[in-house]
């Protein structure tokens, strides 16, 4: 995120696209609603009338996969009505010339046909965003989990730059990242192409520096970009990948086209899983190593707004469980790599991070332990106060200018047909967390959301002979699943929604990837639905 979460309260207009923060980041609601209480306008673009959209002043109910059309149409209106920030464009950006040409076919009237959002509302939203003193964009996986995810994110940045809505309080382009430390994991190089601090593995100088720090021969650090999660499953099915170590992931439930994923994991010569619970993926493992939970360990976490915070251990690990860093050090010791893993404590690890990751250089153990509310990176020196708002004066480009990169609508990988007439989109519900490995074990949460459901509009239900509360068979080109019908006016005709916290959903989803970010298109699949024989009631509600 370019701005802190708390800074949403300073915004005069919040454009939320592809985020259902009320269910998935409930705490964010606090500051968004504070902004609204001051009189800010809230614009929400989502295929469903989610709890996030309930509070919207302008609701843009778009068809899944048409985000670029909507964003381009907003920019069409802004260019047409000259609502852009000419000074910002002139002083801080390049490439704006191509934008007018790229969005000329995206008039609100044309966009209405593609997105199903009324043209007048598109124009209203464009005016509200562009003319607000400070306007922020909040986005999440609704825009990223597409084969055109990268382009959609670029388009969010285009919109912000066009209107100069970045680099000041209450503005910015703010991806709401998921888990408490997913930002930290990326910062630490838990990606296929970079070392900590986004330093590329392909750079020989970087490799030499890390080899020196870790006390290992430079040739042991590969210069090759690795495989991402979905690519690993594909490689395992092909037999190109033979062994896997999985930490805190449950790909059998969480990854798309999950029958294929299960097949891949079953084909491996060796699978080890580091987990809190016996998840569906851990059940396939040769070895399961018990990991400590959040309350049983100490160290730092980096939140979605780049805020590095210290947390202390509350209780001792149960049974044989160990914190992840100790499990990794033990594995390294047994593999003869103990010299490179000479850490006695989490403080030792953080000291190395300070040395090797420039943006974390000033976030020392002593300092972060004492800080209230954490320190946002970049924080290059121990005296540096941290950087709550990015790009206040320049962008991270050699000339300091933001590059406007026009993009065009791309059709989803799978489109509806006579055989598969409905758009299936997937997401989350407030009661469950990711693959449900933890939350499906929690009574209070399971009672409130006990089983897989499919949300559909009353007329869709009527068309396919489906009764609320009865079981449905859902079929895509990849397989079939059972779910309970939840007839609802929160979703449009022709679109159905399933949460992915239960094992069956991802049997149905598409494993086509965004060519750049390699994120799978969880948000659009073509499906058909039919009532189950005998309308049998499932257990639970």
């Amino acid at each position, binding site marked *: 995120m370019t701005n802190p979460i708390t800074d949403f309260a300073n915004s005069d207009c919040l454009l939320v696209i592809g985020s259902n923060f009320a*269910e998935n980041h409930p705490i964010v609601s606090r500051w968004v609603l504070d*902004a609204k209480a001051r009189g800010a306008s809230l614009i929400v673009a989502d295929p469903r009338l989610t709890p996030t959209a309930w509070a919207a*002043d302008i609701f843009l109910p778009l068809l899944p996969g048409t985000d670029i059309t909507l964003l381009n149409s907003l920019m069409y209106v802004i260019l047409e009505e000259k609502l852009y920030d000419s000074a910002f464009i002139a002083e801080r950006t390049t490439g704006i010339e191509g934008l007018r040409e790229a969005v000329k076919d995206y008039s609100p009237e044309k966009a209405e046909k593609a997105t199903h959002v009324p043209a007048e509302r598109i124009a209203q939203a464009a*005016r509200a965003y562009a003319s*607000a003193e400070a306007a922020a964009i909040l986005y999440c996986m609704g825009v990223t989990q597409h084969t055109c995810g990268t382009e959609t994110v670029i388009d969010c940045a285009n919109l912000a730059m066009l209107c100069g809505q970045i680099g000041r309080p209450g503005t910015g382009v703010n991806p709401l990242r998921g888990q408490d430390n997913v930002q930290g994991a990326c910062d630490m190089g838990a990606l296929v192409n970079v070392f900590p601090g986004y330093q590329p593995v392909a750079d020989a100088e970087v490799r030499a520096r890390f080899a020196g720090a870790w006390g290992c021969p430079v040739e042991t650090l590969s210069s090759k970009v690795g495989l991402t999660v979905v690519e690993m499953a594909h490689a395992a099915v092909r037999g190109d990948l033979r062994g896997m170590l999985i930490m805190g992931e449950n790909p059998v439930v969480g990854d798309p086209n999950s029958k294929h994923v299960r097949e891949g994991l079953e084909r491996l010569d060796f699978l080890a899983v580091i987990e809190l619970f016996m998840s569906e993926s851990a059940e396939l493992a040769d070895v399961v190593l018990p990991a400590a939970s959040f309350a049983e360990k100490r160290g730092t976490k980096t939140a979605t707004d780049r805020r590095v915070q210290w947390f202390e251990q509350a209780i001792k690990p149960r049974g044989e469980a160990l914190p992840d860093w100790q499990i990794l050090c033990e594995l390294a010791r047994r593999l003869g790599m103990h010299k490179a893993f000479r850490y006695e404590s989490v403080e030792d690890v953080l000291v190395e991070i300070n040395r090797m990751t420039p943006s974390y250089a000033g976030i020392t153990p002593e300092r972060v332990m004492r800080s209230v509310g954490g320190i946002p990176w970049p924080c290059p020196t121990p005296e540096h106060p941290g950087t709550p708002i990015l790009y206040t004066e320049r962008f991270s480009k050699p000339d300091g200018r933001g590059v406007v990169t026009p993009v065009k609508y791309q059709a989803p990988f799978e489109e509806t047909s006579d055989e598969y007439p409905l758009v299936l989109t997937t997401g989350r519900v407030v009661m469950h967390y990711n693959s449900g490995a933890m939350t499906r074990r929690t009574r209070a*949460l399971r009672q409130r959301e006990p089983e897989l459901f499919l949300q559909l509009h009353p007329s869709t239900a009527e068309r396919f002979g489906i009764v609320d509360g009865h079981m449905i068979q859902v079929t895509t080109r990849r397989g079939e699943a059972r779910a309970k019908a939840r007839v609802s006016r929160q979703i*449009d005709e022709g679109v159905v929604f399933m949460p992915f916290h239960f094992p069956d959903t991802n049997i149905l989803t598409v494993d086509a990837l965004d060519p750049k970010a390699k994120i799978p298109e969880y948000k659009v699949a073509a499906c058909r639905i039919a009532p189950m024989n005998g309308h049998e009631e499932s257990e639970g509600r």
Partner: protein
Amino acid sequence: MTKVIYMDLGRCIYCRACEVACEREHGGISHMFVQLIDECYAVPMNCRHCEVSPCTLICPTKAVHRETEDAVTVDSMKCIGCKLCTLACPFGVIWPDLFNKVSRKCDLCLHRTRQGLDPACVATCSARALAYGEFGDIIASVQTKPATTLINRAAGKVGTVVTMPWFSQGPPAGNSRGR
């Protein structure tokens, strides 16, 4: 000085964390019930601790009684499980504990509020839809909020469009969304 739990209906996001927190504080039974109305209005319902409380009036054993100035509670040793209080409650927020055969209800988290802490539902509310405090203070803040919005809008500080609830526009062409 009466302290109350106040709910700001415009802020409730139906996350139901208050229910789960209440369950944790009260042996697995929640006394908070978030209702979803018309699929887009969430209302956290809990005991209003009525000044003239039908539950205390109807209780034959005086098990349901006013424990403090603010809180109506159940003395489970006196409760005979007749469930009259659940019938009398105009809000339907008193539920029988079917295992112990007694009525259970919101006790305003007296074990917490006596230590100066907020009730568990309020402390856990991520959207700050729930607040706990002196009645007068809360009502004053409720009045301040729309006044602030009004003046900010009038001064052109925020919200350059007039707020237009999405549902006032009716179903658009090609979109059959009902409300």
